[in-house]
């Protein structure tokens, strides 16, 4: 349980940050705008099994969890390194590398799940979207942790805040649009679809859209778990090698 004090510290800081409206809305605004704009504008015109609004609501839930898990965690870690210079407090503490990364990632996951809950509440209020299935719930929890762990690794790897935009532009944004949040991956050209199907957000969407534990949902859960483990392991390695001059 060495991660617990790290988690408590991160959550205490989060409670303060949530007081700032900019922080609260920055991670929610885009998914909410997409949900409302596409839901109202295209909801009745796009043909998807189960209805487009329900499909889109789950896609926006996935995006909100990804963005909040990754972005806020990576910004928090990199700001602590470069701007506030408080990361040395964690690095020097007698908490294991595993515990530090797990504690930060868990706090990031909680933050991402809160954001996801807000999106889902909006979808339920505006569009009467139904509750998630068990694969969807598991998928969203794992996604939150996966992207938060990825955020820790990226936050520890980048050499300056400007490098952060490279990850956003070349990894997060393409995933946002191509991983099945707005339309099924099957609509993509076959070669693109095959590549995209390996990305974590594609697994999240597959799990969210699944009604039960069919072969696709199980495979998506396994792949997402593997990607989560890889992101976490990368974070631990970066933590072990972390230097601060």
């Amino acid at each position: 349980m060495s991660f617990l004090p790290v988690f408590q510290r991160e959550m205490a800081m989060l409670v303060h940050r949530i007081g700032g409206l900019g922080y609260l809305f920055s991670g929610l605004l885009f998914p909410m705008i997409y949900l409302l704009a596409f839901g109202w504008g295209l909801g009745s015109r796009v043909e998807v099994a189960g209805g487009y609004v329900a499909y889109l609501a789950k896609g926006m839930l996935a995006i909100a969890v990804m963005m909040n898990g990754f972005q806020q965690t990576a910004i928090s870690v990199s700001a602590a390194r470069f701007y506030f210079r408080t990361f040395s407090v964690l690095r020097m503490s007698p908490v294991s590398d595993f515990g530090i990364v797990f504690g930060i990632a868990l706090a990031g996951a909680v933050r991402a799940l809160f954001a996801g809950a807000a999106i889902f509440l909006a979808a339920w209020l505006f569009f009467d979207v139904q509750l998630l299935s068990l694969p969807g719930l598991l998928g969203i929890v794992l996604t939150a942790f996966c992207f938060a762990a990825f955020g820790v690794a990226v936050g520890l790897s980048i050499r300056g805040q400007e490098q952060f935009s490279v990850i956003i532009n070349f990894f997060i944004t393409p995933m946002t649009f191509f991983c099945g949040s707005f339309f099924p991956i099957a609509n993509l050209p076959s070669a693109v679809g095959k590549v995209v199907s390996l990305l974590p957000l594609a697994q999240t969407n597959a799990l969210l859209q699944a009604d039960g534990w069919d072969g696709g949902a199980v495979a998506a859960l396994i792949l997402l778990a593997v990607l989560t483990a890889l992101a976490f392991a990368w974070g631990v390695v970066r933590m072990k090698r972390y230097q601060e001059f």
Partner: protein
Amino acid sequence: MIVCAGEGPPAIEVQGVDCSRKGKQILKDVTLTVPKGTVFGLLGPNGAGKTTLIRLIAGLAWPDAGRIRVAGEDASRRSVAFRRRIGLVPQENTLESELTVGGSLLAYARLYGVAHPKVRVREAARKYHLTGFLARRPEEISGGMRRRAVIARAAMTDPDVLLLDEPSVGLDPDLRQEIWALVRTLQRAGKTILLTTHYMEEAETLCGRIAFLREGRLLLVDTADGIRRRAGADSLEQAFLRLSREEEEA
């Protein structure tokens, strides 16, 4: 290469340390020993490599060559036991801006697995005269008070060795005296203290031994009196300038 034999068992041993960063050599073959329970000063101008040496000793970075041991633990391995034995007070304010002073101390106590952390925070607040400031955020208190809080936080977990990087830089004379009193209190409690400074007076007042660091090289390690005598100077400042000149000529 200058070795300080020291009076007691070593708390910090730095042996043949080289360190470069972005192609620039910051430390060159630095060797020194800090005896247990003493206050040791690293004196030198800006850019001499003092902060880098402190960070290497703290295990925050690794040297290119050489070895550092703190309380018998290898710094480069930065084991949990090693990290328990060190308290670092960096130059910057490292109190979390999102937390109150009390919250920051509490989070720190928990990270170090202190038993009854809230009680320990209250005790530290009493000891370091922070009781009235625990509910305030770092930006709501003075620079001197923040410095005091960071020192209290580092000392609260009872480390064997405290590393203070420019503890009184930018503080007015009254606050500097307060920080000096804190350092003396910590030494009386048996702590080994390594502090960096570019204030000659601070080094002379607080430190049993002083190392002169210039452009990454240790010029000399001795007591303040010994340094003055060896350099044939009336003051530490004169001695430093003379030793620097001799080093340049050599």
